């Protein structure tokens, strides 16, 4: 037990890009002892993933790393691949964020898990197969005998991540690097994967480096934490100490970045803005060739009814594929649906687009992806004023500009940025632009479809605050769709829980969070909040 397992000193990672050299990591020190779990926390762009890729010699071609990296006493930075390959996959292993794409789609999972065993241990096909079956059973894949022949696309996201973990364990490594392994998964699956990792670590005694943006996960799993900001480690120490007494401002800010507070309830006699009854959405897709086509129906939304009053926020919660976004679009008549939707008492179903258009001004939408929802070849000014062109065509150019300035100011953006293009802004700024585009029309109802999910926690908090402020000032009604329970808790008056297109549970926010009635809701809430309290 002499010395640490991994000792990184003054690691620098640079990338050559068309816009010059980008310093992703600016000289960090990091050390991992045998058997311990180390968390590396930071927001996007902090360089946390690049450290691990640099250590393992996996940087992109335009990346350069310098400094020193000792693995079990041996210098490994800059080693040729042939030498590195005696360590990679043998004494160290990695799992990644993207369970969908991290496995080769062309080979069965059995083949892929067996590869490191065969290459590093020289095992025969039969030996490797036996080992793979054992590993798949250990990571909780049901029916390993059968699943060993499946291809990655035949498995769910959680199962694929389990397969990745099986592959990582294949040669019983001393070090496991986990790069955001649960970020792309639903909360309930995330909890299972974390539990599995903890259990396997107890069994095999390997060290784990856990890279994540999620403080709750770090607090739950790691012994020590490194906090990174813009390529530098700003604070490090035992998890308990850092969470109890953060010293650096950035750490404090991160810790405070949990959405908090509650929404003031609307006036009890507020009028109803949107009302929906028995909404059903069925997607049918035709497959096959001419004359041999088959129609496949997917029942995306099943018999949902809801009522939204002025100034109220209705949260819609569910995991991916639960139909929550589809429901939102059906309400806005952006998708064909069955059932009945009324806006201020007026039935929307079957209205031709021409009659819907005046109503569209009052019903706006903000999307999840701040990168995809802004037209890349329009300036911010053009994006924000586009709705005015449609709904207030008589407005003069200067009046339009003035309205855009007002809207931008309201979302705390400098109006002088109007001439810039979306790609010049950060994710949070873009989401503000999208909100400005919605409020410039002075709507009464906004559909918020995961508006904070693609953002860093610290930015999320700002957007949540902004949305609550705007709601207060303009008396807006929100339908807030999210998979993130803590954000919903801070935003919504009432919550609907959806699963597989159907409504599972509905009620006032605090009632649902304090006393969930169904098992599914209980599991969801447990997965989301237990992490925070478990540490």
């Amino acid at each position, binding site marked *: 037990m002499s010395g640490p397992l991994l000792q990184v000193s003054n690691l620098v990672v640079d990338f050559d890009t068309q816009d010059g050299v980008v310093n992703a990591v600016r000289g960090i020190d990091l050390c991992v002892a045998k058997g311990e779990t180390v968390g590396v926390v930071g927001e996007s762009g902090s360089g946390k993933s690049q450290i691990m890729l640099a250590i393992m010699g996996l940087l992109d071609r335009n990346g350069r790393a310098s400094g020193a990296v000792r693995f079990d006493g041996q210098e490994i930075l800059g080693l040729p*691949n042939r030498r590195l390959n005696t360590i990679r*996959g043998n004494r160290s292993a*990695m799992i*990644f964020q993207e369970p969908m794409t991290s496995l*080769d*789609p*062309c*080979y069965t999972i059995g083949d892929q898990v067996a590869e490191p065993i065969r290459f590093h241990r020289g095992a025969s096909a039969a030996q490797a197969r036996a080992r793979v079956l054992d590993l798949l059973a250990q990571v909780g894949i049901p029916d390993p005998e059968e699943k060993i022949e499946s291809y990655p*696309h035949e498995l769910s996201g959680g199962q694929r991540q389990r397969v990745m973990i099986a592959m990582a364990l294949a040669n019983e490594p001393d070090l496991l690097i986990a790069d955001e392994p649960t970020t792309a998964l639903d909360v309930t699956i995330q909890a299972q994967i974390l539990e599995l990792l903890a259990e396997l670590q107890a069994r095999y005694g390997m060290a784990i480096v856990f890279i994540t943006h999620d403080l709750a996960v770090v607090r739950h799993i790691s012994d020590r934490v490194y906090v990174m900001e813009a390529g530098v480690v700003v604070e490090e120490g035992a998890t308990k100490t850092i969470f109890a007494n953060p010293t650096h401002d950035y750490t404090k800010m991160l810790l405070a970045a949990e959405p908090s507070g509650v929404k003031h309830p609307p006036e009890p006699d507020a009028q109803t803005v949107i009302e929906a009854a028995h909404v059903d959405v069925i997607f049918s897709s035709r497959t096959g*060739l001419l004359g041999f086509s088959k129609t496949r129906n997917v029942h995306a939304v099943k018999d949902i009814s809801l009522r939204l009053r002025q100034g109220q926020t209705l949260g819609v919660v569910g995991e991916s594929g639960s139909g929550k976004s589809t429901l939102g679009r059906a309400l806005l008549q952006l998708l064909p649906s069955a059932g009945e939707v009324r806006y201020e008492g007026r039935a929307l179903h079957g209205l031709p687009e021409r009659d819907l258009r005046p109503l569209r001004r009052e019903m706006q939408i903000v999307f999840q992806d701040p990168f995809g929802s802004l037209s890349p070849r329009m300036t911010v000014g053009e994006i924000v004023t586009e709705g005015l062109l449609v709904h207030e065509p008589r407005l003069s150019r200067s009046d339009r500009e003035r309205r855009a300035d007002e809207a931008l100011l309201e979302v705390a953006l400098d109006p002088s940025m109007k001439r810039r293009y979306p790609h010049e802004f950060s994710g949070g700024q873009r989401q503000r632009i999208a909100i400005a585009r919605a409020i410039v029309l002075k709507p009464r109802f906004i559909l918020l479809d995961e508006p904070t999910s693609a953002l860093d926690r610290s930015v999320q908090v700002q957007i949540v605050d902004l949305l609550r402020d705007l709601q207060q000032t303009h008396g807006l009604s929100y339908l807030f769709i999210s998979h993130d329970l803590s954000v919903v808790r801070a935003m919504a008056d009432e919550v609907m829980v959806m699963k597989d297109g159907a409504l599972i549970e509905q009620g006032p926010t605090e009632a649902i969070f304090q006393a969930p009635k169904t098992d599914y809701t209980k599991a969801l809430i447990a997965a989301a909040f237990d992490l925070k309290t478990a540490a």
Partner: protein
Amino acid sequence: MYSYVFRRVFSALPTLFVVITISFFLMRVAPGGPFNLERPLEAKVMENLMRIYNLDKPLWEQYAIYLYNLFQGDLGPSYFFRDFSVAELIAQGLPISVQLGGLALLLALTIGCGLGVIGAIKQNQPADFGVIALATIGITIPNFVVAPVLTLFLAVHFDILPAGGWGDGALANKVLPVLTLALPQVAVIARLTRGSMIEALHSHHIRTARAYGLPGRVVVVRHALRSALLPVVSYMGPAAAALLTGSVVVETIFGIPGIGRYFVQGALNRDYTLVMGTVIVIAVFVVLFNLIVDLLYSLLDPRVRYD
């Protein structure tokens, strides 16, 4: 699998039918006829010829007769090569074209894929620039320039190969035509392979393979090349069909008796049946190779399934 092949062949029939119909009528709309020679024939002779070949009947009737004969496997007599039937001409020419095209295809695939892989692995290094330069040359220089230039150097200047002719399929006679046919394909394949290889090498599962210490050869061949071949395969469908059914330019320049030439000769001489025959051969090859491509696709990528 078999039922899929059957369904595909079955669903190709309407396409073939449309191709035949369009070609038939388009051909007939063009002015002139098969017997409008430079020296006009006597009216009597002309009348006889027209009657023998059913050309005096209304167009739709000729069409029906053609379809009826075609259904029985009869492609009709050639109007220009008057001692031969179209089937005989194709039977003579097609094996030669297929032979040359097949050799060119093999050559192009091996060299093209090899160069593409080298370019991708050595991206932005001298070897890569060499591959890019070669590919650009191959794509931009048309075959009717390549063929005479190759002849100039290898046949005229150094006199190591015959300048043309088929020579009953002697190997030396095949070298220049095969090179000419293969060069542009080498270029396109190398470019396609390089592009898709670079993309494949950046994919997440390659990062996984490297993170698990698999040897470079395994990463490149087993994991990257397999998915990188998909665009090459889909390009090769129509390209292979075109190669195997002969090239007008190459066959004209090197004086090779393949079926590529019949097509242009037929069109110029209004040899209706010969043109129809070659069109059908080409269309059948296109359909066939599209089917092969789809089957190869499902073989290479398990996500694609045809059931």
